[in-house]
C-alpha cells in the first residue's frame, strides 16, 4: 500500500489525468443511463395511453352487453373495459369535431356501440396487442376491432433505436474507459521499465511489482465512477425539470456500477502491466 501511495504521487500528473478522463467517460455513461431510464419511463407512460375499440354488432341487444363485457374482461392483458353506448359515442364525436358537423343527425345516430380497452403494462407491445385484437375479433358479438397500429409500430421502432443506440454507446464508452485506463497504466509502467528490471534483479516477484498498478487501477476505476455520479447528483440538485420526470438508477445499481468500474480499472491495470512482464 505504501508503494501504491508513492506510485500515485510520483506519477501524479498521469494518475490525475487518468482519473479525470475516466470520470468524464463515466459521467457520459451515467447521463446515457439516466437518459435511457427516463426515455423508457416516458415511453411506458406514452404506451399506457394506448386504447383499443371493440365495436359491438348491431344484432347484439343492450341486455347482453354486460355478458359481452365480462367475456372481454377475461382476456389476458386487458386492464380496463369501458362500455360506450351510442349516445356516449355521439357525445364524444361532438366533442371532437363540433356540433356543426352533426347537422342532420339530430335524431339519427348511426354510431356503433363499443368497448374501450386499456392494457396491462406487460402487454404493451405489438405481439400482445395483436393477440388481444385477434381474441376480441373472435368473440361472438364483436364486429370490428380498431387501434392505432402505425402509432404503436412507430413508438416501438423509436424505443428499439434508442435502446440499441444506447447499448452501442454504452459499450463504446466502457471500451474507451478500458483503453484509456490501460494506456495510462502502460505509460506509467513503460516509464518505469528500468526500475522494474532492477527490482526484479533484486528478487521482486511479479505480484510485488504489479500490485501497486492493480490497486491503482481498481481505485481509479471505482473512485472516478463514484465521482461521476457525485457530479450528476450535484447538478441535479441545482437544476429542476418540470416538463418530465428524470429517472435515476437506484442506489444499489449505482454501487454495483462503481464496483464494476473498479473491476474494469483492475482489468486495465492488469492489461497495462501484463505486456511488461512477458
Amino acid at each position: 500500500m505504501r508503494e501504491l501511495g508513492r506510485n500515485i504521487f510520483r506519477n501524479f500528473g498521469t494518475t490525475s489525468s487518468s482519473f479525470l478522463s475516466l470520470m468524464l467517460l463515466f459521467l457520459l455513461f451515467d447521463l446515457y443511463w439516466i437518459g435511457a431510464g427516463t426515455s423508457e419511463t416516458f415511453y411506458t407512460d406514452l404506451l399506457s395511453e394506448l386504447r383499443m375499440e371493440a365495436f359491438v354488432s348491431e344484432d347484439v341487444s343492450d341486455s347482453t352487453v354486460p355478458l359481452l363485457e365480462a367475456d372481454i374482461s377475461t382476456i389476458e392483458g386487458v386492464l380496463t373495459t369501458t362500455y360506450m353506448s351510442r349516445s356516449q359515442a355521439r357525445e364524444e364525436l361532438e366533442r371532437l369535431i363540433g356540433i356543426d358537423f352533426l347537422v342532420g343527425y339530430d335524431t339519427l345516430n348511426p354510431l356503433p356501440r363499443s368497448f374501450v380497452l386499456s392494457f396491462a403494462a406487460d402487454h404493451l407491445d405489438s405481439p400482445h396487442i395483436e393477440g388481444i385484437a385477434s381474441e376480441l375479433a373472435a368473440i361472438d358479438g364483436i364486429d370490428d376491432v380498431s387501434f392505432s397500429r402505425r402509432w404503436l409500430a412507430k413508438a416501438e421502432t423509436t424505443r428499439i433505436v434508442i435502446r440499441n443506440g444506447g447499448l452501442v454507446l454504452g459499450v463504446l464508452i466502457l471500451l474507451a474507459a478500458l483503453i484509456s485506463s490501460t494506456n495510462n497504466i502502460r505509460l506509467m509502467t513503460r516509464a518505469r521499465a528500468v526500475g522494474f528490471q532492477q527490482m526484479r534483479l533484486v528478487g521482486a516477484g511479479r505480484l510485488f511489482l504489479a500490485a501497486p498498478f492493480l490497486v491503482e487501477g481498481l481505485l481509479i476505476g471505482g473512485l472516478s465512477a463514484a465521482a461521476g455520479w457525485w457530479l450528476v447528483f450535484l447538478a441535479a440538485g441545482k437544476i429542476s425539470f418540470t416538463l418530465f420526470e428524470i429517472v435515476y438508477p437506484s442506489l444499489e445499481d449505482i454501487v454495483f456500477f462503481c464496483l464494476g468500474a473498479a473491476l474494469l480499472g483492475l482489468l486495465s491495470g492488469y492489461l497495462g502491466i501484463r505486456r511488461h512482464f512477458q
Partner: protein
Amino acid sequence: MPASKVIELNNVFLKSDRGDQLFRDLNLSLDAGRAAVVVGGAGSGKSSLVELLIGARRPDSGSVEAFGELISSGRQGIIRKTRRKIGGVGGLFGLVPSFTVAENITYPLVLKVENRKTIKNSLFKMLTEFSLLQQAGEYPGKLTRVEKTLVQFARAAIANQPLMIIDEPAAGLDSSTFERILDFLARVSLSGRSLLILTSDTLPRDIPNADTYKFSNGALL
C-alpha cells in the same frame, strides 16, 4: 550438491549474443563463507557469468546451481528465491531511478517484509557506513558515479544476504573510496558471507578467505 556450496557451475558452455563461444567447459564452485575473485579482461564473460548466476541467462549446456537450486532450469520461483539471497553491485545491478537512495537501499528488506523499525535502523547503519546520510532523500539521477556505487554496496549489505556479487568493484571509485570498499569487502568475507568479485585487474590487496580465478579461453583457471 552439499548445502555448504553457494554456487556451482558445471561444464558450462555459452555462446555470446554474436555467436562467439564465450564459455567452454567452465566450472566454478564457491563454498559458504568463502570468496572468489574472478579476473578477466573486457569481453571475457564476467557479466555473462553474473547473468548465469542470477538466472538472467541460461547456459547452452551444463548446469548452474545456486544455494542448492538448479537456477539454469529457468524456473521463475527458483530464480526469484535465489536473487533474494544475492546482494549485487555494479554491472547489471543498477539502481531504481524512481526510488530515493533510502528506498533503493532498503528494497531488499521491503521484499523480506521486515518491520518498519528494523528497516529504519538498518538504513541508518548503512547510510552512516557508506557516508550517504546527506543523499538519503535524493534520486539516483542526482548522484555522482561514486555515490551510485556506494548506494549499491549499501543495498547489497543491508539484508545480510549469504552471497554478494560485485562486478568491477573499482569502477567509478576514486582511490580512497576504493580502499574503503576493500576494507568493507574484507569485513564481509570475515563475517562468513560469501563473495564473488569480478574484476578486470587483480585487486591491490588480498581479500580474506578468497581464491583467485582467471578467465582463459572461456574457462576459469
